[in-house]
């Protein structure tokens, strides 16, 4: 067995001189990638398993709404703005309409305000349920999707029964709300109102949402793989978040109990009892947990609003042709994704002179180069997903 001994000696003498070569390479993610929630492209420099200098490329969905709204009338603009963040289209309309009403000094009937509030919270639930569905999916868990989307569909059906649209309700009017044709009374002479049985069905649906929140919590919070993928990953400190303008659940996950529903008075949230869930560490896990807790709080708000909704008209008296007096204001609202605001400059015409749209996802996404610096490549997906952005809300 001489040959074998030679081989053994040869192998034992051979020193392993091969160092692992990890040449830097450029990794391109998107624009067409399921985790980009639209069309987002990331260009990253990858060294081994880590990503550096992440450079987001946006604008694939830029539709120029700020320019378009300069040639549209106020009632037409709600059609545009509910396409900004299409996952919660209804919620986008509210701050714009409130801004116009503020300049016109229109007092909106209380019933209309309650209906706006109920539908906004339903939009929040459906937006957060999309997150509950897609985020575990991006981490490899498909089951929560079926639970979440089933209840989201219930919410969207109810939204549709009132507004006539699942995604693009176009439901708010300056001075009130306008239920879909055919809902409420059958004769057009009588005041239109919400469809019969809406409140009973909403109460039922909210009960289902609370149930599915528990189910999702059992499915996800007990999953060790998801915990390992999200705990301590993508930590966002408060100072960084505020300086980038990160708002909404992403900011609250970093431990800031700041919710525009409590401090701005665009809808009568002060009449309801609800909490602001906050996270402890600002990691991906906390961002997931805060949204789950917000679903439960929104359900609470809806239940209270149904109990307390006053009767009365749905529309204040406004001129047939809407002209907004000269003035400017900034109205912001707590949307599912964060702070959504409109800086409205009116010069007394039928349309705005300038409409600056402050969308939540734009600022939330601008954190990416900071938060993705030096993370593992698979964590890119985990962190991006946890920020819950929609590219329509980024690109406007």
């Amino acid at each position, binding site marked *: 067995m001489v040959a074998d001994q030679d081989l053994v000696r040869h192998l034992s003498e051979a020193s392993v001189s091969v160092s692992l070569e990890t040449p830097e390479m450029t990794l391109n993610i998107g624009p067409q990638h399921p985790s980009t929630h639209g069309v987002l492209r990331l260009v990253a420099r990858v060294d081994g398993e880590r990503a550096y200098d992440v450079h987001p490329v*946006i*604008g694939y969905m*830029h539709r*120029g709404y*700020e*320019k*378009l709204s*300069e*040639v549209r*009338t106020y009632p037409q603009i709600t059609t545009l703005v509910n396409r900004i963040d299409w996952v919660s289209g209804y919620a986008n309309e509210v701050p714009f309409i409130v801004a116009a009403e*503020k*300049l016109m*000094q229109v007092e909106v009937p209380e019933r209309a305000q309650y209906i706006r509030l109920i539908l906004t919270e339903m939009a929040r639930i459906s937006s957060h349920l999309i997150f509950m569905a897609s985020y575990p999916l991006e981490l490899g868990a498909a089951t929560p999707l079926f639970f979440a989307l089933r209840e989201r569909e219930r919410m969207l059906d109810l939204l549709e029964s009132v507004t006539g649209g699942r995604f693009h309700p176009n439901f708010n009017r300056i001075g009130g709300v306008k239920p879909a*044709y055919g809902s409420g009374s059958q004769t*057009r002479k009588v005041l239109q109102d919400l469809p019969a049985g809406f409140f009973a069905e909403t109460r039922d649906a909210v009960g289902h949402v609370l149930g599915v929140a528990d189910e999702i919590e059992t499915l996800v919070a007990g999953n060790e793989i998801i915990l390992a993928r999200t705990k301590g990953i993508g930590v966002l400190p*408060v*100072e*960084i978040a*505020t*300086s*980038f*303008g*990160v*708002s909404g659940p992403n*900011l609250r996950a970093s431990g*800031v109990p*700041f919710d*525009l529903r*409590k*401090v*701005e008075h665009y809808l009568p949230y002060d009449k309801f009892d609800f909490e602001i869930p906050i996270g402890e560490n600002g990691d991906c896990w906390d961002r997931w947990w805060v949204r789950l807790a917000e679903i439960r709080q929104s359900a609470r708000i809806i239940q209270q609003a149904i109990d307390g909704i006053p009767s009365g008209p749905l529309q204040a008296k406004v001129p*047939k*042709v809407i002209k907004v007096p*000269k*003035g*400017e*204001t*900034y109205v*912001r609202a707590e949307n599912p994704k964060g*702070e959504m*605001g409109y*800086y409205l*400059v009116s*010069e*007394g*015409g*039928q*349309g705005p*002179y*300038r409409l*600056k749209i*402050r969308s939540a996802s*734009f*600022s939330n996404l*601008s954190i990416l180069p*900071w938060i993705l610096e030096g993370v593992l490549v698979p964590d890119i997906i985990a962190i991006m997903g946890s920020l819950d952005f929609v590219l329509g809300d980024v*690109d406007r």
Partner: protein
Amino acid sequence: MTSSPSETETAVHPLQAFADRVAEVVGGVAEITFDTVKVKVPVERWVEIHRQARDDLGLVFFSWLSAVDWTLDVAVGDPPGGEVIDRFEMLTTVGDVSEGKRVTFTADLSKESPVIDSLVEVYAGANWHEREAAEMFGIRFEGHPDLSHLYLVDSFIGNPLRKSYPLLSREVKPWPGTVDVEGMPGSAAEPDEPSEENPEA
């Protein structure tokens, strides 16, 4: 620019104390326009004032930055109702994350050389907002790390949000067009009455 009549009539606006404090700390002219505190500041002290707002007033949250193109010579939309001075009005809104206080700072830039210092050093989030304002209005931000196009393709020429920039679809098809909307079911008896928006119909 204007404040509502009710504000001038009532004694003190709830935000007046805050507006006075901002004006005192940063040095500028504060006004309250429809529940929005707006402070006009000199363009030379733009960065300094934002630093003061962040450090001395606790307005740590960067909400947004943009501009308004003021001119009577507009290619799209309606011109302003009254006389205006040709200028770009820079706007930023910053706020706190506890009580919901916020202030909108504004400064005027000349049309000939719209240049202003970049806020990236003070608020990191200004980066993208300034890139957007740069491509949309042609404003130059001194000290910005990378003013490349954000939304528009690199080869795009022009600054679309300037009032002088035409909206091409409007050039092809003037507004308003003819009314081709059908009546609602059951309302067929109502004749199409010419509305105020559309005298041609």
